[in-house]
């Protein structure tokens, strides 16, 4: 077990390292105008621009720049944003934004597990009945229709029907309801549909039939055997979901104008804010690699049949 954790940590570190390196090098392909705020770029002469670039180290060889970037990160200095929030330190920006995304992300996980898991259980229990058909219909709509379309129509129509505010206001808690629910719409379907499939698969196994033949009650078999086994593949994703709540949802934060993390990556890439892009890619890749790692560890505790030894393929 210890050996496995050690091996996996090393592997994860290598992945993160390569991702950061590749993105860093890709960003060197971007034009250097991305290192200036718009006003600076227009007022400076060409010599001043070159001098400025030299002073911030952009003209150094890429490998030296990469080394400096890493050294700064370890010293706790994430650098400053250039074009998106001119001259603001990235730590400040993140502190401001992560809170919003994390709150909505967490609320959405609670809602989608709270509704999606019972829905999946009901669908599996009454397979082929009306509950199952309704659930399937819902999940087909949510998965096949582009999310922007149903999220937008949800916002417009539901806010009208229930007379809720269409945009997010920090000091009006009733305006938090719609974004939290719309963030859960697709993940409710995700939990329901997969749990249903795993439960149906599991319920067809021979040992389940044996348990029923032995005379165990239906609810006992469902709870102790079917659900427990069907939940293992669902559980793998939970650590990732929890860690990535801070990344926010681009569409929803945009529709409801929530000042969260959602659009930050796209904005920073579009405005070629290289410092911000690097830090964000670093954070996201660390979190997603860590999430996969924790997911693999989690199932060892949930499923005693899974043992992580060197013979694991």
């Amino acid at each position, binding site marked *: 077990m210890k050996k496995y954790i050690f091996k996996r940590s090393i592997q994860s570190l*290598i992945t993160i390292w*390569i*991702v950061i390196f590749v993105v860093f090098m890709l960003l060197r392909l971007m034009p250097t105008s991305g290192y200036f705020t718009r006003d600076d770029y227009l007022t400076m002469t060409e010599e001043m621009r070159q001098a400025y670039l030299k002073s911030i180290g952009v003209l150094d060889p890429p490998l030296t720049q990469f080394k400096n970037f890493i050294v700064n990160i370890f010293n706790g200095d994430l650098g400053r944003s250039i074009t998106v929030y001119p001259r603001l330190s990235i730590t400040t920006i993140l502190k401001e934004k992560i809170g919003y995304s994390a709150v909505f992300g967490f609320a959405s996980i609670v809602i989608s597990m709270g509704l999606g898991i019972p829905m999946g259980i009901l669908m599996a229990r009454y397979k082929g009945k009306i509950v199952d058909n309704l659930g399937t219909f819902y999940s087909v709509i949510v998965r*096949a229709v582009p999310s*922007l*379309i149903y999220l937008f129509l949800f916002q417009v129509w539901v806010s009208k029907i229930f007379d809720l505010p269409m945009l997010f206001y920090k000091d009006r808690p009733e305006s938090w309801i719609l974004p939290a629910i719309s963030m859960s719409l697709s993940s409710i379907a995700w939990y329901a549909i997969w749990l249903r499939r795993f439960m149906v698969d599991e319920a067809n196994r021979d040992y389940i039939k044996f348990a029923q033949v032995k005379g165990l009650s239906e609810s006992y078999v469902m709870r102790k055997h079917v659900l427990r086994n069907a939940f293992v593949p669902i559980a793998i994703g939970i650590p990732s979901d929890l860690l990535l709540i801070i990344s926010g949802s681009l569409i929803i934060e945009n529709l409801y104008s929530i000042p969260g993390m959602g659009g930050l990556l796209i904005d920073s890439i*579009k405005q*070629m804010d290289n410092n911000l892009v690097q830090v964000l*890619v670093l954070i996201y890749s660390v979190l997603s*690699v860590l999430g996969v790692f924790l997911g693999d560890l989690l199932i060892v505790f949930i499923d005693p049949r899974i043992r992580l030894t060197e013979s694991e393929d």
Partner: protein
Amino acid sequence: MDKMYYNGTELPDDLFDEIPLDEQLSEESGYSNYSYWRSTFRTFFKSKLSIFLVIIIVVLSLFSFLYPVFSNVDPQQVTLDMDKWNVNANSQNWFGTDGLGRDIWARTWYGTRNSLLLALVIALIEVGVGSIVGAIWGYVRRIDPLMIELYNIITNIPSTVYLILLSYILEPSFTTIVIALASSGWIVEAKFMRNKVLSLRESEYNIASQCLGTPLKRIVAKNIIPHLVSLIIMEAALTVPYSIGSEVFLGFVGLGLPLDSVTLGNMVNQGRANFMLYPYQMLYPTLVLCIITISFYIVGNKFADASDPKNHV
């Protein structure tokens, strides 16, 4: 011939005849009327919903490809006549006109054609490259760690990074979008195929076939290829709604095709801007888009069910 025993008593040799291996007879004894493809299609077309949706897909695709050939309405035709701006649906403009007096009916069908083309090209590249790489990946054990690492890296770099870099190098166009979407999609497909190939290769019936001395050619042709071909068809069908959805999303974040190109994604996003005043401008193209994505999604899933031999009668 060895002595035969039954319950400890020796059986005399004259009870047995030695028969030379007869190719034809052995074929006949193993012959069943079962044909994989016939059963797959029979199961698939047994569902009325599948037939209905396949007809819808065929009719809509044919219509959207033929409409531009036979119609003389120019989807880009703007008019200075203010009476013809934002007209609601009527006998002349079946879906009404937009803010520049362009006919939404014509634009919808041009848009459908372009979006379908985009989606089909992406599906072909992703699934084509993905299946070939996935098949090799599943069979050649040695490249597995390398490919897993590549998979982690590619899926960890946000696709917007590729997209921006590409649109910086090339003009934002049909090709850029295809490359950007396919650049991360192919490895996801490849991973999916690799997992399938691995489990097929190790599945009991293939091991049994090998033990019975079935030549590799026959195992590949009868046991493995049918499985993969049905997976490829299914994945291609499911990539279509995904690609159309991505195009809508890219238009939303401002990274889509140029605004003057007519696609469903651009129409949805332009209609969204005027939704409060002229909801029909978004709703009609959205309706066509949803019919297409939902049909492809359901057909893909129904085909997946039908191609599973467990569901064959």
